[in-house]
């Protein structure tokens, strides 16, 4: 049993080229932060604050994560409606 778990862990570790992982993620951490900053800067915060719940929290989460499908699932708001609100609240879709 223990050997099985260990084998599976080692197999999954072997899937990742760790040298590249650290190098790539160092770079992308900066890019994700830049994307978050762009969304924070561009968002119409007056519009967001005026929204009723759960829209207000969903839009704030969208600014932080940029992940519309994730936010739609968590908040229960339909993706089409959330996309419409994203557009109205001027939250850009940033490609890093």
């Amino acid at each position, binding site marked *: 049993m223990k050997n099985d778990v260990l084998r599976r862990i080692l197999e999954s570790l072997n899937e990742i080229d760790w040298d590249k992982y650290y190098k790539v993620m160092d770079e992308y951490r900066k890019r994700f932060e830049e994307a978050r900053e762009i969304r924070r800067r561009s968002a119409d915060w007056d519009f967001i604050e005026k929204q009723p719940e759960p829209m207000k929290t969903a839009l704030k989460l969208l600014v932080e994560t940029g992940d519309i499908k*994730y936010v739609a699932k968590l908040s229960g708001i339909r993706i089409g409606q959330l996309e419409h609100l994203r557009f109205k609240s001027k939250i850009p879709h940033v490609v890093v």
Partner: protein
Amino acid sequence: MSIAVVDACFLINWSRFRYREDLFKLYPRLALPEIVLSEIRSSDAKRFMLSLATSGKLIIIPRVNLIDREALKLFTLINSIPELPRIDEPEAYGLAYAKLHGIPFLTDNAAPRIAREFLREIREVQVLDSLEDLCRLYSGEYLLLRIKEFMRDTGIVFSKKRLREKRIEYEE
């Protein structure tokens, strides 16, 4: 290059772009996984999808067990890396199909593109986003102009670092 697998976000973005037809200079035919269909709800994207189907430029990939198993594996692998943006089931399915058939995967989600740089499992998969395709289609002044138009039409913003990576100097 004749065919590429396309993700919902990519298709929706290109459906809004005024020069969307140019994409077919790179890929005469796009393959859309059936599982992705339900994600396409905007009328622009649906119209675009129907026009492509009419002109024979779009095929729908059926959902099969073999791809599902591979997709679940990639879904688990990519989502187990907490720093990466997450990948959802339809994206994982598209990525798995592209991997098994050796064809490009078009998506504007950064996770598969970043993950392929260090995940041995998908290292050979060609993952391309909209900027990559714009760079393949246009050059020089036209490229800059088309990037601006793409961002205006779709509401997408390419990060400065991403643009610099492609040696594009862009001032807002």
